[in-house]
């Protein structure tokens, strides 16, 4: 069984991670997250083909094509003799394959980026036919045929021959495949998983990739990356991209400059369906290695759950602050919607735990396909009894979702769907003023109060309840700060400068509050200029004090 921290015993160390949950029931596949992410991060040459955030239709091949087929791409970890080793090979094989990576996706596996020859629209000579804008490759500038794109099979486009490329459908089995394709479809938005056990970091020969201690964000140090491309292979989600212009790896940054200022990521902020949740999770880093190497893949989900700590437990809070997690982060962890959906309500599930990377972007599985299927047969899709029965009998969507979220174990998926179904049935009774049926909540292992709280988080989804993001800190200075008080208070420190705004005046806005401190050089210049006249404010009359620098005292003056 999965290792689990003994209750009531304080963990030796506590680390904090900003994690995300997406509620797939609400995703309408509008790609707004992808587009705003692209405009923010990959709207440059060299990354034309890279989508840090993409939305793929399920069933479907995904982006890049068939990335979930790890027999081919060798992403993630595997157990070899009880030891956790990157599936693409350990250090020796990485060195042996340094000069040509055999498992690197080609550009065609993503798609060849293109533009259109718009010049032709206005520059074409007069003729009988309307001029067109023919496609041009963004790679070599040559005329190209558009044969694939980042969401080519969107909404099941392309038909069964494209669906056959879905590695999960192949696992589910031929007999159910066709039925499934006809009956169900949902969208899966994907970003980097910012894993607890990131195999991309493990694959990087240069040590350029790292996991941040403070918030668990996985980043590429652009100055240390040497373009060996092993991370692209190492990531089973194929969420590290190779910039073919700069020769460096790039990936989703979880919009860390925004998170550090307490703001949600661009994909979350602009999500039309308001389906993304961001919050802090406290975990025990000493359990991660053990949890990632449980022998049975189906135990990986409960094992990862076992790494997460309950921030309401005083022993955990104490250990967290002793480990350098600031108090406001522990507070944020208590209010974390992500912790609630993952650990309290158990409706969120990890994406492909069988890759053994301990992903930290989790998903609430979609109930809508089942409701739709029920309604299609003329049954009441909101009735608890009908819904529970449908979850059990419609084993096709459940087994597909289980391949996606629980390494093929249908039990946790069914349990999560039952809770969502109970919420629907319970809330309908509330809304229609019918008598409450405590049996509905109990059959899903919850109570009426819990269901209503979960309803508030999932259905009302207020902005400040979806995003509970504490501002950034530096793990190395937390201890000093605790001992010495505010580090800005020292003589000559920035805290002792004249106030930037008059007492009682407007406080600084959020952005300047988080602006980096002035560089020492800049501050020296400011010091020297203090007391001098700003010529832009001078009306030209008289000679205000400080127009000319004070004459330095000479020995003659002293006499």
């Amino acid at each position, binding site marked *: 069984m999965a290792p689990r921290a003994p209750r009531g015993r304080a963990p030796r*160390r506590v*680390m904090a991670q900003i994690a995300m949950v997406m509620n797939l029931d609400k995703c309408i596949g509008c790609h707004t997250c992808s587009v705003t992410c692209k405009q923010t991060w990959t709207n440059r040459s060299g990354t034309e083909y890279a989508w840090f955030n993409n939305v793929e239709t399920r069933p479907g091949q995904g982006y890049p094509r068939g990335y979930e087929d790890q027999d081919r791409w060798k992403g993630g970890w595997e157990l070899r003799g009880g030891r956790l080793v*990157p599936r693409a090979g350990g*250090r020796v094989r*990485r*060195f042996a394959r*340094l*000069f*040509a*990576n*055999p498992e*690197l*996706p*080609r*550009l065609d596996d993503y798609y060849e980026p293109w533009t259109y020859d718009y010049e032709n629209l206005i520059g074409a000579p007069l003729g009988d036919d309307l001029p067109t804008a023919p496609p041009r*490759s963004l*790679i*070599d*500038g*040559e005329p190209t045929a558009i044969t694939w794109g980042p969401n080519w099979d969107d909404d099941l486009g392309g038909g069964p021959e494209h669906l056959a490329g879905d590695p999960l459908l192949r696992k589910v089995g031929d007999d159910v495949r066709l039925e499934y394709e006809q009956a169900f479809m949902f969208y899966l938005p994907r970003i980097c998983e910012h894993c607890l*056990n*990131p195999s991309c*970091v*493990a694959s*990087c*020969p*240069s*040590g350029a*990739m*790292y*996991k*941040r*201690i*403070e*918030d668990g964000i996985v980043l590429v*140090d*652009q*100055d*240390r*990356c*040497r*373009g*060996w*491309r092993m991370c692209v292979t190492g990531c089973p989600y194929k969420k590290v991209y*190779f910039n*073919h212009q*700069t*020769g*460096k790896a790039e990936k989703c940054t979880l919009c860390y400059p925004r998170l*550090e200022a307490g703001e949600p990521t661009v994909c979350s902020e602009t999500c039309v369906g308001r389906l993304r949740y961001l919050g802090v999770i406290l975990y025990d*880093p*000493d359990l*991660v*290695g053990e949890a990632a190497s449980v022998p049975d893949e189906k135990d990986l989900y409960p094992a990862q759950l076992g790494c997460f700590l309950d921030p309401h437990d005083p022993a955990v809070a104490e250990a967290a602050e002793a480990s350098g997690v600031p108090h406001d982060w522990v507070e944020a962890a208590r209010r974390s919607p992500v912790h609630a959906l993952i650990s309290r309500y158990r409706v969120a599930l990890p994406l492909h735990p069988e890759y053994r990377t301990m992903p930290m972007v989790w998903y609430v599985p979609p109930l809508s396909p089942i409701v739709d299927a029920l309604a299609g047969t003329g049954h009441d899709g909101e009735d608890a009894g009908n819904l529970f029965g449908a979850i059990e009998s419609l084993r096709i969507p459940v087994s597909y979702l289980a391949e996606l979220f629980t390494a093929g174990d249908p039990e946790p998926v069914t349990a999560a769907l039952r809770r969502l179904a109970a919420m629907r049935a319970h809330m309908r009774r509330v809304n229609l003023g019918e008598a409450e049926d405590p049996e509905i909540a109990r059959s899903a292992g919850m109570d009426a109060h819990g269901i209503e709280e979960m309803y508030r988080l999932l259905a009302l989804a207020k902005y400040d309840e979806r995003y509970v993001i504490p501002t*950034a*800190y*530096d*793990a*190395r*200075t937390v201890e000093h700060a605790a001992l010495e008080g505010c580090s800005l208070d020292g003589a000559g420190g920035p805290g002792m400068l004249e106030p930037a705004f008059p007492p009682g005046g407007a406080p600084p806005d959020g952005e300047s509050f988080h602006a980096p401190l002035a560089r020492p050089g800049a501050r020296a210049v400011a010091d020297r200029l203090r007391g001098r006249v700003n010529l832009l404010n001078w009306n030209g009359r008289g000679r205000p004090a400080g127009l000319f620098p004070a004459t330095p005292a000479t020995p003659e003056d002293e006499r």
Partner: protein
Amino acid sequence: MKHLQIAVWGVLPYIVLVLFVAGTAWRYRYDRFGVTTRSSQMHESRLLSIGSPMFHVGLLFVIGGHIVGLLVPEAVTERLHASESLYRLNALVVGGAAGLAAVTGLAILLWRRVREGAVRAATRRDDRLLYPVLAGALVAGLAATLVEPLTGDYDYRLGVSVWFRSLFELDPNVPAMAHAPLLFQAHTLFGMALFTLWPFSRLVHAFAAPLGYAVRPYIVYRSRGAGAGPAGIVRDRP
């Protein structure tokens, strides 16, 4: 003629050395972002997976051979009881094979670079300058290894190597190099051009050999404020 010889074999090597060292220091100080393999494997993988390992592994052996041939004096191998004929045979077979692999690998890579549109588009100006010099150095070196033992009986360990070691004694032995066959002189000139280009071209990625990976823990943790540089790695896997 004498002045030209002194300029080429007595002065030029030091200019090259200064450019090589200063250029590398400059690159490390100001352009660490630019140090990369700049791989084009995404565009074309089949030919690269044949040519690139051939070229690189061959080159590693060639570099090893140069270190032995240039830095180890003949007196040392004689004391080790390695006979002259054995040494020569070894240099011919191992050196020849490594050189052949490197030249073939480079030929495959250059063919790929010219023929594949995407790879051609990813080729920069410094590449266009570098590849002919690299090819020239390799071909001249391979010819010196394979052709010289057949035609002449020039012992580079008594000529080129003596000149090379004399450079580091700050007393360049110009005649030792001036009397070398033309093939060796051409190879040395190409080599000096290569060292000059090294810090300013993609060759600089050779300095990025990821040796630390062998001893590093798999997962790297770093603090938010740690910034760049090796000191930034704070602690290993939990």
